[in-house]
């Protein structure tokens, strides 16, 4: 029952016994992926996900005064699409379901959430490069388009975000944006 709950849009912890037939056998196992070492029983270490976020999953900003949000109208479809991506809960079911233990769906959801919004544009291309590089460093496998991730995802994140991320990544590699972080204080 690792990630295939057999119910669309449900995490394992959202299943009830009534969802099973009487007498059926339930197999429980921890997420299996090299990048998620088992700590104990069903508990795994998912900090690799956090490090992908730390590498670039943000919009650089500080807590000082900001422009009024209505100064930058955002089409509701765009805001909703960004939210479709942002709704990812970082559970890791996509990784566990993938025969290659790829973290593409997770990373793509995070990249797309910020990359779709006008506020996320300035760092769009440095972000995708940094996050994808970190993802590779963490030892997740490559994507072979099995689409098992999408089927397992409890938040129904669409694999179209992966194509979106790939496009951004390609564009970013061609653009080779200069990441001046470090030489320029980010605040």
């Amino acid at each position, binding site marked *: 029952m690792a990630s295939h709950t057999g119910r669309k*849009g*449900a995490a394992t912890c*959202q299943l*009830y016994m*009534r969802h099973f037939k009487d007498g059926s056998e339930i197999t429980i196992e921890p997420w299996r992926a090299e990048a998620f070492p088992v*700590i*104990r029983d069903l*508990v795994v*270490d*998912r*900090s690799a*996900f*956090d490090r992908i*976020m*730390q*590498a670039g*999953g*943000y*919009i*650089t*900003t*500080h*807590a000082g*005064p*900001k*422009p*009024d*949000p*209505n100064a930058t*109208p*955002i*089409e*509701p479809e765009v*805001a*909703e699409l*960004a*939210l479709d991506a*942002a*709704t990812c*809960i*970082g559970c890791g079911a996509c990784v566990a379901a993938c025969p290659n233990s790829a973290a593409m769906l997770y990373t793509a959801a995070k990249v797309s*959430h*910020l990359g779709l*919004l006008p*506020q*996320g544009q300035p760092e769009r291309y440095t972000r995708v490069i940094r996050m994808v590089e970190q993802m590779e460093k963490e030892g997740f496998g490559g994507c072979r388009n099995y689409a098992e991730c999408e089927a397992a995802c409890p938040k129904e994140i669409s694999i179209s975000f992966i194509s979106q991320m790939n496009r951004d990544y390609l564009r970013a590699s061609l653009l080779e944006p200069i990441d001046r972080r470090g030489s320029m204080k*980010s*605040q």
Partner: protein
Amino acid sequence: MELEAKIPPGRIEEKWTTHLDHIRLVGPRNRPRYTVIVVGTGLAGAAAASSLAAMGYKVECFCFQDSPRRAHSIAAQGGINAAKDYQNDGDSVFRLFYDTQKGGDFRSREANVFRLAELSTRIIDQATAQGVPFAREYGGLLANRSFGGVLVERTFYCRGETGQQLLLGANSALAQQIHEGNVQMHTRTELLDIVEVDGRMRGIVVRDLTTGDIYSFAGEAVVLATGGYSNVYYLSTNAKGCNVTATWRAHKKGAGFANPCFCQIHPTCIPAAGEHQSKLTLMSESLRNDGRIWIPRSKGETRQPRDIPENERYYYLEERYPRFGNLVPRDVASRNAKDVCDQGLGIGPTGHGVYLDFKDAIKLHGLDVIEARYGNLFEMYERITNDNPKETPMRIYPAPHYTMGGLWVDYNLMTTLPGLFAIGEANFSDHGANRLGASSLMQCLADGYFILPVTIGDYLSRHPYGDVDTDHPAFKEAEQAIKTQVNRLLSTNGSRSVESYHRELGRLMTDHCGISRNEAGLRKALQTIPEIRESFWNDVKVMGKDAEMNQALEHAGRVADFLEFAELMCNDALTREESCGCHFRDEYQTTEGEARRDDENYAHVSVWEYNGQDQTPTLHKEPLYYETLPLARRDYKA
């Protein structure tokens, strides 16, 4: 215990800016020399840790979850308030201040509440800049919904997952600071004590929840952003891990605990299905915008809700409160639900339930519109109950949800202990005796982004840095005491599970210190709690070892603290001989059954001082002044 609130002089509109003009600051060059310990990574903690780090302070940050982004703030569904007046419906900073103060039944500090209302608009600006995808109108501008207890639309939201999105925003800022090396993040690490050196709070003792190691961190100040304590009731809408440990242990070190009995019981939760349930699920209050609450008029009704004709349905909130109807504040809605169920009119297998019906809203707006508004809440409800709310009304009942009480703090958010700060739900907050919906996220973020990062400078600038480290004997002593406690829990080897004690305490508190309280019940609870506590320490069975991941041991430590804390709650409820907000004493009600407040004797914050195990705590009072808003009866009927 000194209770100096440090409220700045001047007109209420000027207090915060005047304060900022005169407060002492730490200069950018000196900030990296100060280490600030931030415990908690919910909205309050993540906002504070990331903002402090961005300013240049060194931050050590802690949470007990496996990732900072899994703090309980993630569960908030409905939204966050801000006085933007985008809807042009007459909203203003003053009105938000007024609503919050009235909603809290005039039991909070005016100056703090006004500051909160003032900062509310900046939170939306900040969150949007971070990429929080708030709902938008067709024209691309931000959308709003309304929440209970107010007459304007000022709630910003992201479907039914506003907390998750705001937390991702705050956590992305935190992630950046972790990446840049300004924040050292310690996940799966639980605070177990706070360490004082020469009269100042200089560090904490923690347990690594993976290895069981107990060790310390030193710094120049400690910030607690550890959330609320609704789990004292065992069954609540809070995550299973939420606890009172950090604030309770701070209290035992000398921090005043304010208004512990102010606990909000949220009206719209899925009723408990049976004995062994361990958690309740909240259905967002936003549902009350369109759903109508009713029960059958006659007892012993057996028909399906759909078969009960209109004239046999009792829309009790609409009848009793025609102006606010289903949107009365939470405490009023909860009390009325309990009232009708106590009269035997409740529905469902336990009789503890009322209907929340969308039939009329669907007829009026169409299924599409209602789906778009509440689709994911409907799904969640259906997943849990197997009932489809589009076809049959939801069943709901109140459940403990939010705690207005917490560590007492001054205007700078510092507790009565020098160097110990409390923010977010962990402090006694700006919500008085009752919090309005969508106001907690607002307060957590105001505290974390805008208030604490500045006010902490006033304290730090007056003190040296780097003069104490964890080799100091005070740290070793505290570590030893924690080790002793852990050993005691593991070696008791009795016959009862931790869970069974927690459940027993929860039931007692629900019965006697819940939606309504009375003297006899509270006295009974005060007599029973020490008995449960004694049994716990003699007969609890905690499996496993200390040098490993041991969730039973974690739970045992938390329940041990709840067993002490519950007594303080009951003492507080007993000494507050009035009804106000969520604190409803049966003895103090009007002939119509509404809360009867006693401003002459109880217009104060009750702040408790710890005097040692089994000693009666001392009650101190911070008087409340009403300079801007005259005291008014909180009447949602007129």
